[in-house]
């Protein structure tokens, strides 16, 4: 049996604000490696809740990309309790790995606009 309440809470408490984050002057990859970040994103199972390119998984996990939070924002979400999102300590997920993940998320292109997709305008 699957409990859904945890995910509802997660969704309501961990919704990332992605608007214009890419233009944020504080945004930095801190030298992260996108390829390494992708490997970590898959190996650590981030994609299970957030999608393979951070597109989000609804109540399971908010959208992370395109336009991800800056590094410090992501680090804060990873290091501190926020809803039911697991807390990952440096022993589990190093600062450098978080930087790599952010670099991966920043490398993800925006993609199509909804207005250009006929199926989304029915």
């Amino acid at each position: 049996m699957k409990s859904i309440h945890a995910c509802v809470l997660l969704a309501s408490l961990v919704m990332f604000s992605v608007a214009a984050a890419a233009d944020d002057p504080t945004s930095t990859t801190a030298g992260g490696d996108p390829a390494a970040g992708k490997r970590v994103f898959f190996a650590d199972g981030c994609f299970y809740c957030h999608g393979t390119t951070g597109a989000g998984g609804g109540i399971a996990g908010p959208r992370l990309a395109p336009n991800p939070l800056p590094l410090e924002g992501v680090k804060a979400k990873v290091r501190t309790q926020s809803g039911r999102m697991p807390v990952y300590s440096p022993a589990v997920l190093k600062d450098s790995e978080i930087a790599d993940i952010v670099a991966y998320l920043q490398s993800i292109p925006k993609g199509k606009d909804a207005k250009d997709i006929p199926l989304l305008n029915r």
Partner: protein
Amino acid sequence: MSRRTKQTSDEHNSLDRRKFLKAATLAGTGAVAQTVVAGQVAAAESSTASSSERHTVQIASREAEQGTPHYDGATQTTCGSDFMVDVMRGLGIEYVAAIPGNTFKGLHESVINYGMTSAPSLELISCMHEEISVAISHGYAKIAGKPMACMMHSTVGLQHGAMALYNAWADRVPVFAIVGAQLDASKRGGYVDWAHSVFDGPGLVRDFIKWDDTPISLRHFAESATRAHKFSITPPYGPTVLAVDQELQEDPIKSGETLVIPHEPLIAPPRGEDGAVNETARLLVAAENPLIVADRAARTPEGLRLLVELAEELQAPVVDIYGRMNFPWRHPLAQTRRQALLAPNADVILGLELTDFWAVTGNRLAPGAKRISISAGDLYMKSNYQDFDRFTPVDIAIAADAEATLPALIEAVRKLITPRRRAALKARGAQLAKDHQETLEQSRAAAAVGWDLQPITTARLCAEIYEQIRNEDWALCNGTIFQNNWPQQLWTANHHYQYIGDAGAYGLGYLPGASVGAALAHRKHGRLAVAIGGDGDLMFTPGALWTAAHHRIPLLYVVHNNRAYHQEVMFVQMMAAKRQRGITRAHIGNTITDPNVDFAKLASSMGVYAQGPITDPKDLGPALQRAVAVVKRGEPALVDVISQGR
């Protein structure tokens, strides 16, 4: 008239699913009895033959346990189970789902040789698992608005079906369940009969059914069946169980016995008390930021219409928990996606058949806000299983059926709205309509993210399905929480039958059976039934696909194949992170890979047209189009889509 006196060896073996056919020799033949059918069951009187006029053949020999049953030559002219069929038909039951079991072989034979051959038809739906039998009944009832029957073998059969009964209980859905019983210990055969006997069979599920009984006479059966049926469709709806003794099914009707089928009354659902309803109306009309939250509020199409009427009178936002099709998805007052904004700022929250009122706001309630509940759940609840959710202190608790109470509430609201107030409400409604449109645009923008991605996003999956069905009379047969509620975000749905909610207790294995049951109910209306279900769920009860193929039940089953029990990965990650042991192994036990399951082959093996696995989103539309064509011809089809987690 004697119909069958011989049986092939194959047929013998087919009776032997669990190798437990019992020995029995009947005394008395040619018994003459009288069946009196009353009230609603007049239709049963028109049957080609009544239950007291026919013969059946009784299986005898303990050898039957070993798979070689034979007859002792004894015949009889009547049997109790034919009368039971008449009772079920009299209750308006059209279908009975079952996998064979010898404790109801008398009823089984009566259904196929009497129920299915005379009017009104009572058709046996062949199943592969008792969990599927119950789930089919569950899904059927949510569309048909009435229960169908399911029969289960004593002990092991009911144990298999128990979880599905719990789903029906938690989902407030009527299921008319019959389990076989061998009450007379002196009539039991070998060890299998004893292993399949129980003193109090329904006790296993008594914590999560509305009512049960073990009748000891045919009159008793008729009265208890009518009572069980009545209870199941009196709000709050719920499943009932009758344990029916083998001898009662198989023995002849006693000579001269007059049997009466009680007529069932029209059910009047409990309505809210006038004073409480009027106070609720006063609070709602005076509220600046009222909020209506509906869960299983619309039991019938009328419930949806009434909720629209109430919302429009008040120009109040409606948050739909999606337990049922409560409210049109594109109605300007549909504000489900804005719940997190609306609920903490609401000054009056009206919960309609809300199971979990607490989850609406939690502790984030506006100062002075009033919470009002209208729920039949307050009228009947049990204690052991905790599906009643967290206690929520409400200000007015109306213990009544919400749908039945809405007419009085609407009338009271209407009387209180002055022209000046109506103008203010209109302005509120205009703002909400604007908010609804903005939310729709946000949903579309979110759906566009990762549009061409592989694995395919759930948004793309749902948009592609809608593209193929939107010009049909479609009906979605699954809850959508695991697809991020994309159908509600992107599709237009106005009819009550277009959505039925989820399992109730989130017990896996629900959807394959429930969607087949719902599609069975849709079939006579010519609707295009669609289900989107997870791969994990389908692996529990894939045999439901065979039932759909066998009975030519048209259903488009789309597998949201994320190759994992996705929900649980996060929980295991959480544990591993907390224990500082790394999170790279959290997928173990959660993923369904190595090997990947080929659901198209699985479906094809059971006679279901299948496509997939579909990995490229460009291939999805054409595959769905081909599958829809098959479904429109009256057959089931499956499309396996390799998808993102959610």
